[in-house]
């Protein structure tokens, strides 16, 4: 059984890499969006799914990554070289926020993150060097879609691989322990604060890298696009839909979400109803199957066994 899974994972990694050979630009663009969604969902899942700390403020990290790349590029730095700096800044910011915020438990931490994200958005819209509410453009020239495409796909593969590695590592087990019973985890020697900060920083860095790539591809950034609350919401919704705390969950969620986005945008009636859909999905999942698709799959196990036996 195990080798089937390995083959599937390998295929999932290789297919997008060879896609440019037979897909047109429009579809590759969709794949790029999907890769971005996978990165955001998987990265958030490190803290939100593995460690159980739900943050509604991840748009801040995307924005930090995007703006670092944008501003430094405007100063003449090669865009791709700015990416690591964006990651470092986002990680640092995540630690600054995390140090006080992680003292809060559960939903109170979540509320604090809403506050932080809002504060960041408000500040970013008011300050002039971000271009204010009208945003900024990347310097012209050197837009290379293929390069952008491959970098996003490779980042997605790297992020998912990292998530898989973390999940089975002692660090990942520590995070799971924190999620299930933080006091008992402390009671066996887990320094919960340090673990949460580490998971937060790692995921923030990943999101920031995606933010930088986003800036490079979109060429235009405004505070309303990168610091948007709806973005933070989608980042949270994807892993929840797919399956919190699993490796495949965020990917499934990202798939559904991206498909939904694309379909919604093409049907005018639905375009105005996306909040209904997001909200409805959130309500249904949380009330009936908090473990998302993976949870439903697991519940069907007895049924599947019957099919396998016959």
């Amino acid at each position: 059984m195990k080798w089937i899974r390995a083959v599937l994972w390998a295929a999932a990694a290789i297919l997008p890499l060879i896609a440019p050979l037979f897909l047109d630009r429009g579809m590759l663009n969709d794949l790029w969006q999907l890769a971005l969604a996978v990165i955001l969902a998987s990265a958030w899942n490190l803290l939100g799914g593995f460690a159980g700390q739900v943050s509604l403020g991840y748009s801040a990290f995307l924005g930090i990554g995007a703006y670092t790349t944008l501003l430094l590029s405007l100063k003449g730095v090669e865009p791709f070289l700015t990416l690591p700096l964006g990651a470092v800044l986002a990680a640092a910011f995540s630690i600054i926020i995390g140090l006080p915020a992680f003292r809060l438990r559960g939903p109170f931490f979540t509320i604090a993150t809403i506050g932080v994200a809002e504060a960041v958005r408000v500040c970013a819209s008011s300050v002039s060097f971000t271009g204010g509410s009208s945003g900024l453009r990347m310097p012209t020239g050197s837009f290379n879609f293929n390069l952008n495409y491959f970098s996003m796909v490779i980042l997605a593969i790297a992020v998912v691989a990292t998530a898989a590695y973390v999940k089975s590592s002692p660090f990942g087990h520590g995070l799971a322990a924190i999620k299930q019973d933080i006091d008992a985890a402390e009671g066996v020697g887990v320094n919960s604060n340090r673990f949460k900060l580490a998971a937060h920083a790692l995921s923030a860095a990943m999101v920031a890298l995606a933010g930088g790539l986003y800036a490079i591809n979109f060429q235009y950034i405004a505070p309303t696009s990168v610091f948007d609350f709806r973005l933070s919401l989608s980042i949270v919704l994807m892993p929840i839909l797919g399956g919190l705390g699993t490796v495949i969950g965020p990917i499934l969620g990202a798939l559904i979400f991206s498909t939904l986005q694309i379909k919604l945008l093409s049907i005018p009636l639905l375009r105005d109803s996306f909040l209904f859909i997001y909200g409805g999905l959130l309500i249904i999942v949380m009330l009936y199957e908090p473990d998302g698709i993976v949870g439903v799959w697991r519940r069907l196990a007895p049924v599947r066994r019957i099919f396998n036996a016959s």
Partner: protein
Amino acid sequence: MPPEAILSARAISKRFGGLLALASVDFDVMRGDIFGIIGPNGAGKTTLFSCIAGALSPTSGEIFFRGERMNGLPNHTVVKRGMVRTHQIVRPFRQMTVAENISVAAHFGAGRRRGADADRSVRDILERTALAPDASALAGALTIGQLKRLEIARAMATEPQVICLDEVMGGLNPAEIVGAMALIRSIRDSGITVLMIEHHVHAVAGLSNRIMVLNFGQKIAEGPPQQVMNDPAVITAYLGAD
């Protein structure tokens, strides 16, 4: 504090708002002891364990472990230094297997094991606590007897020098109690000092070499089991004054 004492408490008091849960408790535990703590419900025994383990900070008083002052240190630090406690109401990681529960403790406890070394340690503890057959079972599916053993196994996996067992025999049938007593003796024989809170007075008397009695947050007796059991103050505390 006496040089051979591995754990010393001086004038430990703990106040919760208007409630004085612990009032100036003093005691010393020697290396290799099995130190029993008994007393009626509400006497403050679990609170005392929480203070020792670092889950709570004493309102006043000092705790010394291997010569170092421990009060105010966070729980995980205390564990890394070698003192661990189990919980009266078990707190397993329910969505992890038995083996995973134990390996978390092996990785992050005082032993700080990694890789194959950690796996070996986990297997060893599974054997000693008779949990080997259940190693891949999810903790959420175990019986109370198994859960109690898991609680102890996890504590053992941190490779402590002092282990504080909080009512591990609660809810066990007589056969399981005999098994638990044997396990506790084997823990002590492996070089770990044991503190145990227990209501099963016979078990405590049979295992401990010294017992302390708490009532209303105060120490009312301390000494070898026979002496403490016959102490009139202790009898009164359990049966009420006549």
